[in-house]
């Protein structure tokens, strides 16, 4: 971002593409009738996309949420996935810090999205929610799916986005797909909630690592018992 804003635009665009490809809901027949031509999946609402993008851009928060899931439902896979992130330097080197805005993590994505819309990798529709609020839907086209698959398959640097986007999707599924459910869950993060408006949301990597250590110790004690 600092050195080549043009490059960052493409970088942000490919991250969003891979995120939409990972978390987009497949279109059934009814949805296909109302979807733009060539659409294969959809992410409804910019707010939801922003919240999911927050977890993709902040591996420490993603790992902390996995630990929350583990505490709710102590499945070893949650602890392992969180450990995969926190045992590495991923929270420090793979993060893209975001600003906190009125309704949580937020960043203007129009320029990055235009990179996806112009070659019809993603198509946008503007509608209204049943409550009458504006609603933007992000449709992944078949072309977009193909480019995403190609990036995941051929570019190790980009494949990481897909792997983490899959984790993000599983979190979203356990949380609920509405933007409100996601925002509520993210607000449960103390550091997130206490961040002043328009300031970078701070890292919680160290705290998450300490928490991981405690949970591992507890798990070890439980196993031994």
């Amino acid at each position: 971002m600092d050195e080549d804003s043009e490059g960052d635009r493409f970088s942000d665009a490919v991250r969003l593409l891979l995120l939409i490809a990972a978390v987009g809901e497949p279109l059934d027949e009814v949805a296909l009738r109302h979807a733009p031509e060539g659409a294969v999946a959809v992410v409804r609402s910019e707010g939801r996309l922003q919240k999911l993008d927050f977890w993709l851009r902040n591996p420490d928060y993603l790992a902390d949420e996995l630990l929350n899931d583990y505490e709710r439902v102590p499945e070893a896979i949650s602890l392992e996935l969180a450990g995969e992130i926190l045992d590495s330097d991923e929270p420090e080197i793979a993060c893209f810090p975001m600003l906190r805005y009125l309704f949580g993590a937020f960043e203007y994505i129009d320029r990055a999205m235009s990179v996806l819309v112009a070659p019809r990798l993603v198509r946008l529709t503007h509608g209204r929610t049943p409550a009458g609020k504006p609603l933007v839907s992000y449709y992944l086209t078949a072309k977009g799916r193909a480019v995403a698959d190609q990036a995941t398959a051929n570019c190790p640097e980009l494949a990481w986005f897909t792997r983490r986007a899959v984790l993000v999707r599983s979190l979203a599924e356990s949380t609920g797909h509405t933007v409100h459910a996601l925002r509520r869950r993210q607000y449960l993060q103390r550091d997130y909630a206490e961040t002043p408006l328009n300031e970078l949301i701070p890292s919680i990597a160290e705290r998450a690592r300490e928490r991981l250590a405690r949970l591992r110790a507890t798990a070890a004690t439980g196993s031994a018992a």
Partner: protein
Amino acid sequence: MTLMTIPTPDEDSLYRRIADKAPGTDADTVREILAGHGITLNTPLPSRRELVVHRLYCEGTKTGTDDNDGTFAVDIPLGPGAWALTSTHNSAGKSSLLWALSYVLRGDGFGAFQRKDTIDWFTYIRADIEVSGVPASIRLTFDTPGKPTTRLLTAQTVEQLQALDPHAVDGDGVRTAATAPPGGAKDLIDRFMLERLGLRPISVWSAEKNAPKDADGHRDSAEQVHGWASYFYAVAMNNGNSNILLGPTTTGQLPVRLMQLFLDVPYTSELTYLTTARKQVDQNDRRTQRRAAEDTQARRQQTEPLRQALAAARERLAACEARRPDHAALLTDLQAAGHALVTAQEHHQDTAERHGTLRKMRLKDERDLRRARQSSAARLLLGALQPEACPRCDHTIDDTRRATEDTDHRCSLCTHPLAEVEVDPEAEAARLAALEERLKASTRAETTLDAGLRTAEVHLEHAREDYRCAADRLEQVRTHPHTTDAEQARRDVHHLQGALAVATGTAAELPAAVGHYLTDTPDPRQSEDEPDDTEDRVLAAAATVVGDIVAKHSRTLLPDLNTEILRIAKALAVDNLTDVNLSLGGQVNAQKSGKKIAFADISPTDRLKMRIATVVGMITVGRKHGIMSHPGLLLIDAPTAEELVPEATYQALKTLYETGGMPGVQVIITSIEPVIPDIFPPHRIHTGIPENPRMF
């Protein structure tokens, strides 16, 4: 120089003179302090003391006699001059009558006149008298033996009193001045006589009966006040065995004080009170000191168990200290381990901080490289795609506009000229390579310091272990029974030191800070104010000044008195008396045949004559100096009882008769001497029942 020519300082100058001898005081202070002791130094006025008995009347019932039981009444007219109560037989009642007279004049029977077998006979005694010109009739009614009721009558003339029947209390010009219930005679008559004769009591400081002596030989004493009953020894005399020249006791130099009093030496009474006050103050001081010493001793005794316990605790501590392991070396080891631990901690902290900095640098390099690669890949992936629609309106971009972009280098979406930005693969590769090199370098630096950090961690852990081991070793020694015993013994010593310091109020054995606290805290036992010795100094100065005056006047009078005593004693036929030299200390300093002889070694008869000579001497010396300081009454029981030589008896009795002829003098004697009628006129001899040797 005569008494009248000796100047006596007036009251104010006397107070000033005392104040001058007591620095820091003034006349008012002296006056105030002396007044606090009931002493007022009023300028003495000349006295005129006179006591004359005009009538003695007695009633009673005789019991236990051989042949003479029954009631009796005796009425004896008297007056100035010499009188003799005489009988040719012993036990005729002469002394009993004199005892009765002494009782009514003194308020209590004069012991030396007392005849135990007759005192209960008397039921009523009356004396009509003149006291310094005041007529009075004293009536004693003995409803209870020894405890008469008293009635004091006065009149304008003594004749009005004499005219009254024996028991009558009403008459022309007669009134009852005072009465006293049984047992109150002495107080009433004492007060009446002192007041009428212008006498003040004499104070004597006398040891309390059976009081033990203290270490300095002092015995607890108390003030004895001598009034008219004691002064009566200068009135009543007999041939007794008393070794005292004058008065009932020699304590407080009472004999010489009586002489000074009846010679009108100024401030005699005041001097006795000053002396007593000083001794009282001294005794109070001694008692205070004694109490303080006793308190100290008591405290010491109270604290003795503490001292013994402290000594025992110290011995126990010394024994424990000898047994306990030496932990000084262990302390040194622990201290060294502590220093090493601090050094290791500082080194580790410094290394960890540097490692943290290198890690941050490596992470930044890694993040930069990662983003650069992602960015490069994204550009390659997306940059090559042809635009198909407008992101704004979603209209399809037609081939014409795409061709224009290729031919005219204008954006197929917005038609703006495209920047001449060509992606240089080599430059891009070089940029990535540079980032990779930077990452390698920072990784290398971090890795290098990893070893240093691990070493620092190991050192730190070793230092912690060393410190823990040293602390454990010291703790083992500290918790060893010998050590705990020593610590307990030390605590015991400290507790006992503190307890002893509090109990004794001394902080010598305590640490300075604690000791200062203790000694700065006022001890209620030591909080009494410093004694103010102003009172002592004023009393001492007053005693000196007044004593000087008394001594000066006395020394002026004593030579004359000595001369008179010697003259009268010889007239009374005292054998071989060659010199008398009364001292201010009360010694007679008599010489017989030129040799000193103690008064006690003189025969009883001569001692009586010496007493008579002394009293008569006081009267004559006083008269010579124009004063009547002695009342002039002499009651003498059997003055020649032991006299063997008839000439001497005659001489003595004649001298007494002649003494009674002095102005203002009345002498009443008892005697069995047959020569009495040769010396006394018949009307001055009372022989009692006619044709009967008994007086009544």
